[in-house]
């Protein structure tokens, strides 16, 4: 009898765990539906942005280039990319000379006349100030 009670309790604990786990999963999944995406004005993105030694330049036509003077790279030697800004999702597709694309997706958190802030999904944050 005790063994049966033990089995029932065990099943209950597991069921509670599963239900609880399922509830947590449901709640976590359901959060996406409630994610609120801020919309930024892409025209503000045009121009030179500087973060430390890292420069990024955005053209209004969806092209841009980036260089880091810490690595002894000049603007003339900058590498090019294309970009899109949909709501807060900034996608840069860096094109390699040999063929192949390297896409990078960031979430913009701040974009105004002087400041650009974005981060990726791995917790890397960038803060740029407008240079020119």
């Amino acid at each position, binding site marked *: 009898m005790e063994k049966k009670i033990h089995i029932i309790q065990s099943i209950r604990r597991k069921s509670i765990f599963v239900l609880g786990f399922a509830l947590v999963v449901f709640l976590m999944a359901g959060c996406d539906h409630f994610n609120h995406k801020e919309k930024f004005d892409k025209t503000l993105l045009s121009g030179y942005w500087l973060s430390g030694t890292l420069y990024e330049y955005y053209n209004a036509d969806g092209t841009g280039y980036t260089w*880091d003077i810490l690595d002894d790279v000049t603007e003339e030697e900058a590498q090019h990319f294309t970009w899109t800004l949909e709501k807060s999702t900034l996608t840069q597709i860096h094109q390699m*000379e040999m063929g192949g694309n*390297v896409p990078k*997706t960031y979430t913009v958190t701040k974009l105004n006349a002087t400041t650009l802030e974005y981060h990726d999904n*791995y917790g890397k944050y960038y803060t740029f100030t407008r240079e020119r």
Partner: protein
Amino acid sequence: MKKGLKITLISLASLFLVIAIAISVALFCIFSPSKLAKIVNSQADRFLTCDFSMEKAGLTFFKTFPKIGLDLENVVLKNPQKGEVSDTLLYVKDCVAALDIRELLKNNNIIIHDFSLNKGLVNLYIDEKGNGNYNVFKTNDTSTTEYRIDLQKIKAKQLDIRYQNDQAKQRANVKDADLTVKGTFEHKDINGAAELAAESFAFAVSDSSSLHFSGDDVKVSYDGSFTDFNLIDGNVRADIRDAVLCVDTTHYINGMDLSLASDVQADLDNLHFDLQNTQLNVDKQELKVNGVVNMDTITHDIHTDLHYQTGDWKIEEILPMIPRAVIGNKLDDMQISGNIALEGDVKGTYSDTQMPTITSDVAWHHGRFAMKDLPLDFEKADGLFDLHLDFDNQSDVTVKSLSATTRKRNRVTVSGTIKDLLGKMLLDIFATGKLHITDFKDFLPEDFTQYEGQADIRLKTQLQYDPDKEFSVENVKNATANCLFKNLSLLYHDTTSMASPQMQVDLAFPVKERPYKIGEWLNAKIEAGNLTISNPGQFNISGTDVHLDAYTNNLLDSTINLKFATTYQFDQLDAQIDTISAQLSQPKGVFALRNTNQIQLDYAGSTVKAVAGNTVKFLSQTLNLHVKTDYKEGENNLLLQWSPTVQLQLANAKAEIQDVAHAVEFPALNIDFNPRKAVLKKANLKFGQSDINLTGTITGIEPYLRDKGLLKGNLELVANYLNLNELMAFVNGFGAPDSLTEQAKQVSDESGDSPFIVPFGVDVNMNTTIKKALYEEAEFNNIAGRVYVKDGILVLEEMGLTNEAARMQLTAMYRTPRMNHLFLGFDFHLLDIKIDKLIAMIPEVDTLLPMLKSFSGNAEFHFAAETYLKSNYDIKFSTLRGAAAINGHDLVVLDSETYKNIAKKLMFSKKTENKIDSLSTEITIFRNEVDVYPFLLSIDKYSAIISGRHNLDMTYDYNISLVKPIRIGLDIIGTEDRLKFKIGKAKYATMFKPEKRKVVESSVLELKTLINKTLQENVKDDEMMRR
């Protein structure tokens, strides 16, 4: 004395005196002057046809003792003839004749034993018809009495003799002559001897050409006959002081002392003279003559046939005697002296238009010779000549032998002929000489400042010399010279020297052969056992067993450029120029300077060794070279200036270059080159471990050299083995801009970095077929593909290669814009590769995808990346971009510590079989971030989606979303040594369920597709890969 004897002698004397007085009285009584004059006049009429008169006649005993003589005073014979200036034939002031009276009276013979004249005049005249006024003896005497005059002794003193022949237009005058005659005069025949001494004499012929002969202190003797007043046969001697012989206006003898002795036979009517044993002395010069001289009585031409022989004449005394009309100005520019002896003939006619031919054997001794245009003076000359003087045609000289010394110690010998001696001389000369070069400074260009040595010269020449024109080398019709130089040493401009212990130089001028068509003018063949040309500090060239066969164009024509061509052959030729030295064994070929801008070099030889300082060492067992250049002014680049066309063949050659680790060997090389194109017909070269065969063409050389274009190459490279490490080091930095070269040096000095710099200015396309290649530590097999280098960019395009790990295709680009900013990009595809081999071959893969080393099996790997590098090849992470796709099948998960942790956290069954059916993932690299895009992994009954990031500092942030059998997430965070495993959310739970896929997941999948598609676009099909 006894008294008796004294009385006797006095008595005899008294008796003799009485008898003499008695005879005189008797003669005076019998032959009184008046009676005697009548007798003489009567007798004169018997013999003479002309008027005869005398003032006084008397007998003398004392004057003609012991004969009785007839003494006449003022005897005059007059026989006037028309045309004669004077009618007096003979005038004698005082004449004594010892006659044989008895013979005269008894036999009508006039025997004059003694006849003397004192002061008188003889005036002989022949009119134009040939009638002489001296024909005063009766020949048609009716008495039929023959007369005969026997002149036992005739003496005349102070006679003036005049002779005029209007028929022969001759005149003669003898002044104050003393005459002694002994002989007979019968009819027109005279025999006897006569001696004439006169104060002066003159003889003249005034015909179409005039002749004048005169002299002083004349002594003439004749012993012989004068027959019919015409024929002379006797011995003549004559001595004349201050003689003058003038024909027309030409003085053949002028104020000289003459001496003549001759056996003469003459026909005066025909003016024919036969001279034998004739010896003529003109001053001190002796001349012996035999032969015939004849004057045509009508034309007055003089015909000669004479043989003559001289004594030893002094030329300097003889030459002034030669009339200028004969010799002209030929000798004006000539100085000649010495003793000369002549023997020869004078044959021919002398007239207004003709000159006799003179031949002569000439012996010249102790002579000296100089001529204006001949830069050499000769002395101690000895020679034998044959002279043929034909003034009407051509005069020639044959030089049998002639030797002389010039410039004190240089002996020359000459033989040959001189044609047309008095006109445009044509000399055919053979000469030898032993010369000291030092003595002939003026023959060498002034540029030569020192010269030593001896020369044995054999010269054969044919040349024209016209005294009226300036001599030039063009007058040389043909000349050959064989010169043997000993101990030759020349110094040019005090800097460049040439030396040879013995050198044979054979010159030929002009040349008939035209082997090079450069206007061949002079040929020089040079042979030397040893020849050295050097300029200390600049160059030194020495050759052994030298053979040159050279031609030049006209060296003396300053209006044309020098052209020069030679064949050459050496046993050994060593050359050192500045820091470059070369040793050539048995080189031979042709060198031609066809114009100042056209050079041809043909070279064939065996061993060639060359060293350029410490920079290059070159060795070739065989070298064949054919070069033609076309020099162009105004070009700065040497290659463009000379514009060479080159055909080069090397065999077994080797070049060692400074700072290049390995020698470049050329087992065989065959190249055609010109400024437009270089054709590598065959280039087999070995460099270190590499063994390469190269063929193809290189174009655009000229634009490349002008910095207006790239050097373009289209080559086929076939190699058994290629060590790329060595080759890249070899071509490192070729043609790089100066700025980059300076950077390289600076970087190298500061950091020691020496990155590979891709050649600039070239556009070379190379199709390669390589059996095996080594790069870094990896060996690759069966490489085929295209390599091209374009102006600082190196591209390996779709190179197919295999090794034990995989079949591969590589497209890579390397560029060196600046030393600290080197671009490297590649597109690399590995098919059917073993994962462990992949990691071993490319360790960087473990950095990109650390989890891969947890798998074992085969995979496909597509990887494209690019980055800029620092000068030490460190990656500039801010520039690093990359994308990779890995597709694996039938993999095995290795039982690592990480796998155990994951399996434990995800509650994998212990019985889980660690096999994976497939794996397909995409990876991007951006800066130092490596993002692994979500991929599905199925192990046994488990399915998980793995995604995440790790940084190149090896910090991890991964998520494993277990989707089967349950959904659960596992975050793996930390470093490789300290990984933290945390249960969390399954980030991509529905990614591979299209019906449940979320927007973000769709977006990620699109990116995955983009990455994969662009990565595999460049993969050739498998068949191509295999090729």
